[in-house]
């Protein structure tokens, strides 16, 4: 019985894996909300500070005008005007480095949401303290802790620089 179920499970997983690997698009049977399907197995363009030269140019399908400009780029660049150079740059790249480095307000969202979730967990911990945790051990009682402290002083715990060093044994009080 067990052999049969594990065999079925194995073949199911194998079929899912091969479907994911063999198809060139990312679409799975259950995946319904992605409109344009990017082929992640092909080189992609990214605007990233740590990837200065992306795997492919930004613009793929060039108009006739842009194609003629690309032809002109093959010649001496001193013959290109400033506007043409900028147009060629914008064909190759989407954003410039200063544009990429522009600060945004995203950090406020991140910090805010993180604090919200921290607050929620705080509420959960409070509920746990009221409804879940058992009574604290007897060693937490005031009386027990006072006796514990006296015992530490009697034993001369850390008498040079630490605990008992701060207690005045003649007067019976803290220094």
């Amino acid at each position, binding site marked *: 019985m067990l052999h049969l179920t594990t065999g079925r499970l194995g073949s199911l997983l194998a079929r899912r894996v091969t479907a994911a690997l063999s198809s060139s698009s990312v679409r799975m049977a259950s995946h319904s909300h992605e409109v344009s399907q990017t082929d992640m197995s092909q080189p992609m363009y990214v605007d990233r500070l740590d990837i200065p030269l992306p795997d492919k140019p930004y613009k793929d399908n060039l108009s006739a005008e842009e194609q003629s400009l690309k032809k002109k780029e093959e010649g001496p660049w001193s013959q290109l005007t400033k506007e043409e150079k900028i147009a060629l740059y914008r064909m190759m790249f989407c954003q410039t480095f200063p544009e990429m480095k522009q600060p945004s307000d995203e950090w406020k969202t991140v910090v805010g949401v993180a604090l919200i979730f921290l607050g929620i967990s705080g509420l959960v911990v409070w509920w746990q303290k009221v409804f879940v945790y058992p009574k604290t051990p007897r060693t937490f009682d005031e009386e027990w802790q006072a006796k514990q402290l006296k015992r530490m002083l*009697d*034993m*001369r715990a850390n*008498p*040079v620089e630490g605990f008992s*060093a701060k207690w005045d044994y003649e007067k019976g009080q803290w220094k």
Partner: protein
Amino acid sequence: MSLPKPVMRGLLARRLKLHLPIAFVLAIGSAIAFKYTVTEPRKQAYADFYKNYDSDKEFNAMKEAGIFESVQPSGE
């Protein structure tokens, strides 16, 4: 639109020429500071503690407090 060619080589060496001495000074400085703010006072504190330390008196005080298992307070 012609900018001067930027420096292409020796960038790490240039950075190290400034920051390596700073690193050494800060490291050695913090070691010296630690020595004279922590270790020397601590050595002095121990010396002072044991200068007039009467171990018999301390032992008897502890014995009377009743913390030992091998010897009971004088009353019992």
